[in-house]
């Protein structure tokens, strides 16, 4: 992969995040305090245009001549598909957004949100997407079942498949995808996508270097469309209570030894000044594989990688069994023994730890960038100043690289034999056109605090590159010069970010006494824009640094799940979790790690390594 590709990967992952975060906020998450609009604008901003920092400017969505010329070919194809698919005569837009002359009704299964928000009077059956599918595309989805949340959805989809009753169009996870393809239950989509994808989609499908497409391809045939771009991933940051650090006069930790010293100071020197020993250095959850309040950043600092395969001189191996892991665990155990970690962390999941962090008990933790936008702002409102730093590296770690995961999550697929596979592509196009193109109308398609607009779309592909790092460059320049005209012309998001950063610099901080609730919310919003979007120390600046310096190590395995993974991954992960927790808490001594590794290999790990390397050698 070229470094440019890697860049794109990184961006698109972030882009995916920027999609997630504002919705989290709107859904209020755990903390009602987050009810306000803080940050929504700052982060959601994103995807106004599809031009990219990767250099490829997005063509405007006009009918490309070659796309238009495909029409006759389609019409020439036998069967009623063609006649039905023919656009209305007067239509002159791209074929990928054309309307069926007769309404097409594919069956569909919906993964409903656990707490859906609708605009007044709207519902899953009646909202703007339903109207647009019908009026613009001539498609009426026939939802044969719906389920709330991923667990229920997966369970029902499994049952659907066993009972031979799969919808025409649906989304599935990677393991299901592999099985469905092997069983010949999915329609190949390559030619359909070629014919029907609008240029914007074709472009955005390549934004991750075609990784998403590659992972939706089995034996040379494309069977699915990615739900999101594949990212270099969840790069880790160190989040620190900046106010505590300044108060105690500590240096920013550069090495793991520094980090230890800071954590110790945060515990022993009463950083919150309340005279009570009630603070902890490092916040971690009791589930090492969770995605916030993570172990990953800490492990990366020691050159240990979890949840990813690494390339050891041409041999792929799972990061979890590498000897570096032992160093990281020994250090964590030291933290635990010395009380730098909450002794009760073993019964706290990440939600519980984040509650602790927000109530001002945690000084340090690792996580992905969006933690700054959720849930930390709830703590900011209580006077906490959180700042992200690049992760420190241990002296023993000569490689000094961050881990990254590169796995495609969901794929939109079409049931084998369904007569209108292009209907999927059309809906896919429509979402991209409405939300990711130049024509993105934030007043209609963005949603606000009261309803969740994009989550309503049955087909909602979040592909394309991220705008945040791109905007960061402009905003930083403009703020430094105090000159709004340095922003990209007509970019409402940049103006928004610029204005808010300026407001913060003008002294509108959340850390003064006597603010009304509204002022506090606004100022927190300004503060977060400042922390995320301005200057080399802002998160986007750090991300830019990560990207440019290339100090990351991607998941070396990105093929379809191997049989041994399907069989054993869950068991092995459970064992790994137990090993980590037991060593950290001292229930097992460090040598238990070696025992774990041999058991890991015995219980299917060896087979996994074999299969993964077979895949690797075939690449």
């Amino acid at each position: 992969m070229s470094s440019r590709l890697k860049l794109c990967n990184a961006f698109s992952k972030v882009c995916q995040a920027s999609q997630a975060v504002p919705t989290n906020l709107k859904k209020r998450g755990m903390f009602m305090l987050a009810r306000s609009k803080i940050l929504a604008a700052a982060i959601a901003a994103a995807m106004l245009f599809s031009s990219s920092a990767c250099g490829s400017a997005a063509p405007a969505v006009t009918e490309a001549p070659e796309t238009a010329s495909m029409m006759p070919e389609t019409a020439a194809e036998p069967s009623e598909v063609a006649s039905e698919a023919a656009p209305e005569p007067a239509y002159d837009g791209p074929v990928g957004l054309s309307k069926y002359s007769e309404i097409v009704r594919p069956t569909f299964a919906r993964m409903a949100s656990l707490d859906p928000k609708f605009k007044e009077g709207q519902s899953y059956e009646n909202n703007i997407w339903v109207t647009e599918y019908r009026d613009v595309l001539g498609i009426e989805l026939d939802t044969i079942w719906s389920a709330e949340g991923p667990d229920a959805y997966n369970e029902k989809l499994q049952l659907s498949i066993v009972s031979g009753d799969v919808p025409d169009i649906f989304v599935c996870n990677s393991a299901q995808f592999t099985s469905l393809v092997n069983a010949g239950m999915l329609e190949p989509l390559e030619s359909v996508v070629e014919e029907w994808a609008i240029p914007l989609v074709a472009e955005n499908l390549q934004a991750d270097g075609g990784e998403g497409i590659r992972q939706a391809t089995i034996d040379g045939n494309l069977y699915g469309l990615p739900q999101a771009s594949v990212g270099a991933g969840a790069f880790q940051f160190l989040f620190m209570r900046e106010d505590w650090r300044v108060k105690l006069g500590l240096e920013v930790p550069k090495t793991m030894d520094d980090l230890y010293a800071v954590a110790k100071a945060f515990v022993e020197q009463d950083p919150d000044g309340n005279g009570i020993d009630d603070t902890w250095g490092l916040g971690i959850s009791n589930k090492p594989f969770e995605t916030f309040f993570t172990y990953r950043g800490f492990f990366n600092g020691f050159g240990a990688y979890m949840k990813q395969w690494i390339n050891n001189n041409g041999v792929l191996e799972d990061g979890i069994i590498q000897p570096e892991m032992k160093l990281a665990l020994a250090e964590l155990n030291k933290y635990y023994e010395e009380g730098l970690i909450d002794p009760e962390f073993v019964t706290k999941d990440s939600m519980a730890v984040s509650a602790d962090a927000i109530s001002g008990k945690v000084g340090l933790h690792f996580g992905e960038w969006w933690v700054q936008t959720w849930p930390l702002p709830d703590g900011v409102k209580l006077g906490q100043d959180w700042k992200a730093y690049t992760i420190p590296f241990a002296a023993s770690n000569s490689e000094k690289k961050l881990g990254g995961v590169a796995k495609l999550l969901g794929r939109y697929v079409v049931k084998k034999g369904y007569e209108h596979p292009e209907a999927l592509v059309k809906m896919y196009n429509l979402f991209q056109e409405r939300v990711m193109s130049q024509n993105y109308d934030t007043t209609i398609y963005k949603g606000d605090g009261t309803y969740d607009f994009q989550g309503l779309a049955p087909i909602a592909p979040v592909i394309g590159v991220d705008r945040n790092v791109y905007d960061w460059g402009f905003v930083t320049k403009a703020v430094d010069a105090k000159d709004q005209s340095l922003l990209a012309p007509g970019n409402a998001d940049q103006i928004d970010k610029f204005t808010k950063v300026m407001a913060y610099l003008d002294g509108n901080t959340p850390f003064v006494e006597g603010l009304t609730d509204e002022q506090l919310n606004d100022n927190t919003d300004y503060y977060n824009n400042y922390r995320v979007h301005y200057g080399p120390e802002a998160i986007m600046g750090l991300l830019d640094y990560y990207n440019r310096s290339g100090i990351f190590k991607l998941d070396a395995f990105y093929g379809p799940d191997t049989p041994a993974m399907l069989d054993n991954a869950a068991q092995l992960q459970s064992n790994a979790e137990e090993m980590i927790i037991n060593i950290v808490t001292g229930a097992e001594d460090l040598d238990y790690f070696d025992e774990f590794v041999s058991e890991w290999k015995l219980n299917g790990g060896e087979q996994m390594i074999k299969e993964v390397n077979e895949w690797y050698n075939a690449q």
Partner: protein
Amino acid sequence: MEENKREFKLMRRRGFSAEYIFDFFNILFLGFLAVCCVLPFINVIAVSLSDSSAATAGMVGLWPVKFSLDSYMFAFQKVRFLLSMKNSAIRVILGVAVNMALTIITAYPLSKTVKELKGRTFFAWFFVITMLIGGGTIPTYLIVMWTGLRNTVWSMILPGAVPVYNVVILLNFFKQLPKELEESAVIDGAGDFRIFLRIIIPLSMPCIATLIVFQTVGHWNDWFSGMIYLDNIEKYPLATYLHNVLQRPNFDNMELQEIQRVMKISNRTLSDAQILIGALPIIMVYPFLQRFFVKGMVLGSLKG
């Protein structure tokens, strides 16, 4: 003699006061148990009546902090919540009716001796075995689908239509009933059906009432069948709805997009309000049915 009498009196008095001491400690102990049982419930009530930020911060104990009825207002505005209450009500009424009818007519023959019902032991085991062995989710789902129940309220009722545990309880109760009653009724010329309806069932009311409580609670609280067999979330019963609202998101291995989908109500005040509203109808079933237990006293005198 005198001495004996005095001793007897003393014993009585001592017994008497011992009885009071026993009563005192008995009530004290049971009262303590009752308090232990009520406290969490009071906590739930207090949380539901508190300001949500106070609740999230874990500041609410047994008394509401910053009293607020918002959650209740909000719960009652939630269409899905009200709808699911209705769905549950329908399910309980239909389900309990079907269950009880089947329990009674199945238990009665099985309470007979082998002489009266040839193959009784076989039939008994036929039912009991289903209590011990199940086929699992997938095949049950397939059967429910093949019999056309999927996405109907019957999918939550018919697969468990014969509650074997209850059948066994009831058949044992039937066995205990005095045979003489039946025999004398036969002599009086009453038909079998009449005996069953007019004598057996009324006599079994304490047991039947108990089983109604079990059954009602079972139907009201079951969430799994709703989630599996129902295709429209609008048809979910309350338990399924609440399960989805309350389940703790499992962030293991969850990628951002999924977190986005799962981030949801962790608003404790709202969920606690919904739990309370949801639990009220079912809690009221018990005191209502308690009077049947008292009526059952009649049985004792008959036996004597």
